[in-house]
């Protein structure tokens, strides 16, 4: 039972937008038909259900964040990378040193982020929390854009992704 962070991001974003739309619809319908009309009550019920689901998803995401190993690995990797700078000026060995203990794929976004972070720290002679946050946000936005595009592609053309459909079927039958 595992929900990747990207899925939480997608769910929270989708449900936040849905909540706004549903609330807007409920207000519009209520202003036309009155608060006692069945349609107004159905709209309010839908908005309330979206709100509840969003709250539950946010709680689950927060619990996952609390139980996650945190930035210890990243901090250690960055320290290791910084210590290696005098001996190995080329960034590739640092990436490999980071990848191995963290057990991440070489294409994981964290590699690109750490590379970029260290490169900027080198070129600017330091790194502030604000700059690191901006870099992370950029990486996150880029990741989410790709993720949402991929999801839309899958939803529109599911027959183009037979291996994902098979995987989903297998998981759902477990």
């Amino acid at each position: 039972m595992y929900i990747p962070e990207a899925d939480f991001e997608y769910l929270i974003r989708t449900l936040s937008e849905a909540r706004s739309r549903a609330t807007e619809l409920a207000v519009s319908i209520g202003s036309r038909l009155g608060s006692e009309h069945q349609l107004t009550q159905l709209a309010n019920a839908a908005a309330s259900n979206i709100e509840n689901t969003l709250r539950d998803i946010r709680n689950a995401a927060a619990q996952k964040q609390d139980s996650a190993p945190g930035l210890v690995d990243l901090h250690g990797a960055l320290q290791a990378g910084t210590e290696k700078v005098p001996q190995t000026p080329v960034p590739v060995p640092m990436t490999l040193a980071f990848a191995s203990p963290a057990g991440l794929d070489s294409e994981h976004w964290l590699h690109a982020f750490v590379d970029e972070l260290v490169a900027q720290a080198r070129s600017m002679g330091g790194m502030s929390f604000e700059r690191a946050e901006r870099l992370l946000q950029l990486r996150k936005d880029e990741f989410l854009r790709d993720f949402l595009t991929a999801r839309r592609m899958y939803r529109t053309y599911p027959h183009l992704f037979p291996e994902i459909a098979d995987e989903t079927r297998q998981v759902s039958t477990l």
Partner: protein
Amino acid sequence: MNFDTRGFSALTRKATELMWETADVPTLLKSRLGEQHELTRAAGEMVASIETFVRELRSFDASAEPVTTDTYQDL
């Protein structure tokens, strides 16, 4: 009782888009957490309530008489 039914086509369209946008939430949660998980069930109830709302809204929109009809009758 007369209602102001103008603009209900636009509301129906927005509600339908809302239904489409949230349709895959239970599927995603089911694939990650299983059918019996509390979150999956909550998402299923959410989508069911949105579908009921959209169905009733479509029905109302299709059967609603335009307000202008009353106006012409009054003249």
